Structures are given as C-alpha cells and as structure tokens.
C-alpha cells in the first residue's frame, strides 16, 4: 500500500538526495555563482559582475567555437547513427541468438578500455607514416594527411560513441515485435521498404536517444579534438581548458560550461520531444 513516506522510506530515499544535492546541485549552482566572480592577477574574487558573460558572449572566437562544436557534434550524431544502423540491424536480424549475445558482449568491451588509450592508438593509425598510410601504400595510394584534421576528430568521436550508439539502437531493434515485420511483408511490403516503413518507425525512440547520447558525449569531449584533431578547430571543450590555462580565468570557463549545459538541455529536450512525437500519452500503457 502506498502510504506517506515513513522513516523506513526516508532511510532509502534520503541518502542519494542529500548526496546529489551536496555534490551535484551545489557544484553546478556554484558554477553559476562563479561565472559572476572576477579575476585580478591570477586571483579570483567573489563578486557579482556580469563581465565574464559579456566578455565571452562578445568574443567572435566563442561563437566560432560554439558553432564548430555544435556542428561537429551534430555531424557525429548523424554519422554514428547512419554507420551504426546497418550494424545493429544486422546483429538484430541476421545473427543467431547466441551470436547476438556475443556481439552485445563484445560491444560492451570498449566501455572498459581507456578512451585515452584508444585515442592514442588512433594516432598511430592515422599519422602520415601510420598504419593506414602504410597499408594504402601497398596499393600504391597515399600517403594522405589524416591526423590533425576534423576527419580524425570524427574518428575519435566514433571511437567514443559508436559502441554506445550501436548498443542503444540494438536494444530498441531487438524489442521490435517481429510480427510487425511479418505483417508488413504480409501486406506486400518488400524487404528494404520494410526497413523504412516499419523497422525505423518502430525503433524511433531508441534511434533518437542513441543519436542524442552521441551528441552529448561528443559535445563535451576534449580528448579527440586535441589528440586527433590537433586542437584545430577550437571546440568549446578546448576553449574551456584554454581559458583555465590563462590567468586563472575560471569564471570565464564557468560561462562556457554553463552555456554548454544550457545547450545540452535544450537539445535533449528537443530530441526527446521528437522521439515521442506522435505517440499519444496512452501509448506507454
């Protein structure tokens, strides 16, 4: 019976609430306060001065970085979704149950290898004399400049997000009612058309959420743009680290961080709305 929360209930619900208030909400709130502090001679002073907001928002380089970051993250989401879909589709529909379990297990492994280590590894693949160019050389191609380009950043972004995107897509695909596919075939819907008419609409929520996670991950990542992209172009994450590197400008870094959070919340809100668009409330039963 659902009674009002009792001592018993509070014992279970309070600790997390207190912890997240103290160490999640307060730090974020402090970040807001911090963005109004001022810095003189390497020292921060509590203050209530919008100067950091004005300065940051007044800088073309900030907006440039903002545009770049949004564009990169959006491209990464689109690219990851498109690259992952055939793979998760094939794992769902073209593998036996046991092969599928293995595939899922294998896709979990990357989460437990250091992202830094993998990015470092990519440097060895992508550099001018790296593995890829050596292999291309065997076919008389290249060498191509790959490292320190936005393309290499994208490779890093895929390293970061592809396993997650594949898994999230996979989880929405395996839960598709197979009879829907059979029903579509039964109504003269051919193989490929079924993918677009039935499979994708059925998995829509999962596909959008997967893309959203890719966006969130890549939007805040600084490892790939620095170590694969050569720090060029400047992304917001690079701008944050740069800002903290220049005369203790933490308040300005806070402005960037808060702008990023705002952007992410807006994107997440829109994505979730889009994912569930057209699905009535009752649909979740």
């Amino acid at each position, binding site marked *: 019976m659902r009674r009002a929360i009792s001592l018993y209930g509070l014992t279970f619900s309070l600790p997390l609430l207190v912890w997240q208030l103290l160490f999640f909400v307060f730090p974020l709130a402090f970040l807001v306060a911090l963005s109004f502090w001022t810095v003189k001679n390497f020292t921060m002073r509590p203050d209530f001065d919008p100067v950091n907001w004005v300065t940051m928002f007044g800088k073309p380089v900030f907006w440039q970085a903002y545009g770049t970051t949004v564009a990169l993250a959006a491209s990464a989401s689109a690219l990851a979704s498109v690259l992952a879909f055939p793979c998760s589709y094939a794992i769902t529909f073209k593998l036996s149950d046991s092969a599928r379990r293995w595939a899922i297990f294998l896709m979990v492994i990357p989460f437990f290898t250091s992202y830094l280590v993998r990015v470092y590894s990519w440097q060895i693949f992508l550099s001018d004399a790296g593995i890829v160019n050596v292999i291309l050389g065997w076919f008389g191609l290249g060498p191509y400049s790959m490292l320190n380009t936005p393309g290499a950043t994208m490779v890093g972004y895929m390293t970061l997000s592809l396993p997650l995107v594949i898994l999230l897509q996979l989880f929405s695909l395996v839960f598709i*009612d197979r*009879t*829907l596919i*059979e*029903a*579509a*075939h*039964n*109504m*003269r*819907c*051919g193989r490929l*058309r079924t993918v677009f*008419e*039935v499979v994708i*609409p*059925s998995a*829509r929520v999962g596909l959008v959420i997967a893309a959203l996670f890719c966006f969130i991950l890549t939007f805040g990542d600084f490892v790939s743009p620095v170590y694969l992209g050569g720090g060029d172009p400047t992304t917001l994450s690079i701008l944050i680290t740069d800002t903290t590197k220049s005369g203790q400008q933490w308040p300005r870094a806070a402005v960037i961080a808060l702008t990023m959070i705002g952007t992410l919340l807006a994107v997440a809100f829109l994505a979730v709305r889009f994912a569930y668009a*057209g*699905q*009535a409330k*009752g*649909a979740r*039963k």
Partner: protein
Amino acid sequence: MQRDTLVSFEGVIKRFGGFTAVQKMDFEIKKGEFLAIMGSSGCGKTTTLRMLAGLEAPSEGTIRLSGKPINHLPTWQRDTPMVWQSLALFPFLNVRENVEFALKMRGMAKAERRQRAEQWLDRMQILEFADRNVAQLSGGQRQRVALARSLVVEPEILLLDEPLSALDAALKVRMQSVLKNLQRETGITFVYVTHSQSEAFSMADRVVIMSRGVIEQIGTPQEIYGAPRTRFVADFLGSSNIFTGKVLAASQSMVEVETPDGRLALGGGNLPIPPRQGDTATLTVLDTKTHLSVSRPTGAANIVPVRVIGEEFVGATATVYLETAKGHEIRVQKSHDELAGLPLDIGQELFVHWAPTDSHLVAEA
C-alpha cells in the same frame, strides 16, 4: 453445396532442424468456406497457416493457391493477409494509416486509398476512431482495425491465428458473431486457427483437428462432436467418456467389448469395418448421452456401477463426476431438472447406463 478448391496442401511437410512440426499434410480448402484449425498447443496450427501466408517454406510437398504452386513465392507477392494473435498493428501509425498500409504498398493513390480505408473502417464501425492512435483503442476496437487492415485489399482468403484469444470472454463472443457475419457477407475464405473448441464449433463450416503435426479429423462441427474418429479427438474435445478393452464378439451391427469396468456393447450401423474378436478396441460415449439411476436399470445394455466424486455447476447444466470400482472417471452431463431427483452426495452409489447406439468405436492413437 459443392464448392471449388481454393487452396490445396499436397504432402506438405515442415521440419525445423530435426523436429518435424507438420507431417505429410494433405487437405483442401474450399472457396468461400470458414475453415477452423484446432489442436493443442504446439501441434502445428500456426506453422500450417504461416506456410500458407509465405512466412515459412514447406520442407516438402506443394501448396497450391487457385491451382498455382506457391511454395517459394515471397510473402509480399501473395495476397494472403493474416490477422495475428497479437494483432501486429503498427503502433507508430494511427488507425487510418494502419488500414491504408496495404493499399499504399500496392501504390494506390492517396485519395483513393483513403476512401477505401474509410469505407472499411465504416463497415467495421470504427470510422470515428480513424485518427486515433491504436494504443488508445479498446481490445475489441483494435481487433476491428486488424480485420479492416487485412480486408481492405479485398482478398480471396483471410488467415486468422487465434485472433480472439487476448480478449475477455464477453468480447470474444461478440467478436465471434462479427467474424461470422463478415465471412458470410463477403464470401471470403477464412482459415481460422484456434485452440478453443467453442470458437471453432460455433463459427466454422468445417473443422480440422490436428495433433503433433498430423490431421486427426476433418469434418463439420456436428460430425466431429457426434462421432470423434480417434481417441485423440475424443479426448481433446473432452465431452466423451472413453473405455478400452478386448473385443469379445463382433458383427456388422454389434460389437461387445470386455473392459475393466464391465462388458460394454455398441452397435447400430456404425461399423464400416468391424474389429476382429480379440482385438483391443476403444469406445466412447458422450457425457450427454449417459444416464444415471439409483437402482440397476433393467434391460439396458451398458451398465456401470459408480460412486459420486463431485458435481460441477456450469450454467444450464451440471456435470456429475463419478468413479468406477476400478477408479476410472466417468462424467454425466445433465440439466439441473434432470438431476434434481437424484441423490448426489459424495460417495453415493449409482449406476451409469447408455444405449449401444450412442457408443462409437474410435481409432487408438
């Protein structure tokens, strides 16, 4: 009425790996009939239907539709729409879009398919829900959408796989008459898979009874109910008492069988091939054809002394459960009026008797 053949199964076998789900099946479906396929779980009903729909390929044999073999025609090139147990409505489309789906796949223009869809929605009395999400409909309404979705292409045949099993009892009965009427009015051949006896018997023109991939009996509901042909069918329908014993005497018109519960007779032109003396024979008698009396009836041919073990109250009738001296259970079904005069306390000793003409021989296995 002699109808043309629409579908024929010719020696059709379906294996899954080493397991044979359907064994050498030969039968025909007539144009315009309502055929029910019944049998216990796992007997191959769905597999049979799916082969017809092109969702499984037969391992051997040929399936013909209007005379043409269709074994290897992909699903999407046949017109064999199916209604799924789960309904398989597209949750991301609204009611109208669901119904339009098959038409869209056939490349029909938007205006025309909209009109056709609405016509069927109207016919199924759900036009007012056309713009609703399927999740917002009740079970019965969803059922109608599924029917409309399959019927909108006006096929020659409609396949239904336990379409009513998810509905509650009241709705089930209501949808049965919707289905029956629809079939009558459209003249479309219905192939209806179910494991509910009452559904099959109340709707179908002919019933196929399957067991472990084999057809046990095909016939009208009356034929099957009145004279189950095999022990499986008798058991499965559950309305017969079954006795097994050795044949003592057998002629064209009368057979006498020695069973643990006594000597039982049957006869009256029921015996195309009478069994031979000494054979094992199984005979059945419907629980509605058995009678109860307090004292041993005189002149009756089949009399079994029994004790009452319980009574079950089922609407207009009651079933009395009895036990012979050997522990064999016998059931007698009667109206309340007929039972009114009998003492039915547990342990009460009574006599069950029935006429030899109400007994039938059935094949074992």
